């Protein structure tokens, strides 16, 4: 008989605690009916240790995972996904190592990162049907690892608290950012991480926070954390002019396929108009 219930009554933290203490083996499936498609997540455990997790979409493809962690470029990942269609993750892993594109360690680390991101995200779900199927494990061709649940539960709880704060501070990701206009902004000695600089380079009243996240393969949590930090530092502020700039194709972004997610973002501004350059010249001459 499978364990069944709703996250309303029994939180992810409690479920993982149970699995850990009872050293259970099997797969936990959680489904959020209210959310958009893709709101299904599966986590597999072997004797109380987390060995695998994935969400309902295609994001568990190894090429995609390696792209997210920066081990493959977007172009490499795209080519591999097309050429190696139908190849399972384990086979693909061998091929990539043999081709010298990545190392065994790259794969393990990336898969670990992917699995943990899936699980940490689940901590933020407050609703959803769950079911634990004892002894059901991922297919043999999936790459599995082994992670102690204690550390996962601790980190997940920490993120949950942070998540709640961030959610409150930054409820809407469909707004755009701009660099701050306040001349008194205290901008000295800001230390930005690589990830933050990536975000900074996309800050533009035409790009919503959501689009920036997609372009950089960041989760809602990660982008919220970065943007919140930049808002706090006074580096950026919300831009109100975004509505007019979002084209109909951008507005339908959630239904586009994963491969298309990079397109809506404005990376290359439209060819610069002559008048803009003339204005810049006038301004700099006057300094």
């Amino acid at each position, binding site marked *: 008989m499978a364990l069944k219930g709703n996250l309303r009554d029994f939180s992810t933290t409690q479920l993982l605690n149970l699995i850990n203490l009872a050293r259970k083996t099997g797969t936990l499936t959680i489904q959020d009916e209210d959310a958009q498609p893709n709101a299904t997540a599966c986590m597999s455990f072997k004797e109380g240790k987390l060995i695998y997790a994935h969400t309902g979409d295609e994001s568990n493809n190894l090429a995609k995972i390696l792209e997210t962690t920066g081990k493959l470029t977007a172009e490499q990942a795209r080519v591999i996904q097309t050429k190696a269609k139908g190849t399972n993750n384990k086979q693909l892993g061998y091929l990539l190592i043999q081709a010298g594109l990545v190392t065994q360690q790259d794969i393990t680390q990336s898969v670990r990162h992917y699995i943990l991101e899936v699980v940490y995200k689940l901590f933020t779900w407050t609703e959803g049907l769950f079911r634990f199927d004892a002894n059901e494990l991922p297919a043999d061709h999936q790459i599995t690892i082994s992670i102690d649940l204690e550390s996962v539960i601790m980190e997940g709880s920490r993120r949950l608290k942070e998540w709640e704060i961030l959610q409150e501070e930054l409820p809407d990701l469909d707004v755009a950012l*701009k*660099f701050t*206009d306040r*001349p008194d*902004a205290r*901008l*000295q*000695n*800001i*230390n*930005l*991480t*690589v*990830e933050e*600089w*990536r975000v*900074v*380079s996309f800050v*533009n*009243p035409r790009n919503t926070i959501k689009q920036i996240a997609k372009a950089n393969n960041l989760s809602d949590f990660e982008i919220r954390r970065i943007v919140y930090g930049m808002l706090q530092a006074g*580096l950026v502020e919300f*831009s109100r*002019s975004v509505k007019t700039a979002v084209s109909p194709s951008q507005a339908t972004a959630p239904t586009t396929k994963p491969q298309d997610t990079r397109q809506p973002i*404005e*990376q*290359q*501004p439209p060819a*610069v108009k*002559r008048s*803009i*350059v*003339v*204005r*810049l*010249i006038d*301004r*700099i*001459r006057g*300094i």
Partner: protein
Amino acid sequence: MQAVKMVITGPFSAGKTRFIGTISEIDVVSTERRITTSAEQIKDNTTVAMDFGRITVDDDLVLYLFGTPGQRRFDFMWDILSQGMLGFVVMIDSTKPETFREAKRILETFESYASTPYVIAANKQDMEDAWEPEDLRIILRLDSSIKILPCIAGNKESVKNVLLELLYSILEQIDQQEAQNQTD
């Protein structure tokens, strides 16, 4: 509101931070200090030395100046930075011939990212042992069509001149493209 961007690049210590600081209306965000003490490998929390300055034109136009990180291991940031730039300035410390080769390499890398115009700033011209711009042209084997401008990064007029020359080149490119479109 439109934001446009220019990139200021060049080897370590060429004068990028100084250049942006001279013209920017906000204090330059620079993370240099941290970088020198950080480990060799890029870890998640490693910070990248990069400068960021701003010139507001009017209510709906603003120019951002991005200085690139100098260290080689941050080369991947260049690609990110060069996206959508209007043009770029390659700064060279004219007193340090040992960095000229590196400057050329940086120039070529940026050229490969974007076909936007660029100029070269032969910086530190106030120093006695600075190479003259035209000597730099010869040693770097740069075409006569490429502007090599004398520069003193702490001097406002000098920095203005470099940015203006770059803008003139951008204007020229726009005019050429328009002329071409009309003949097509």
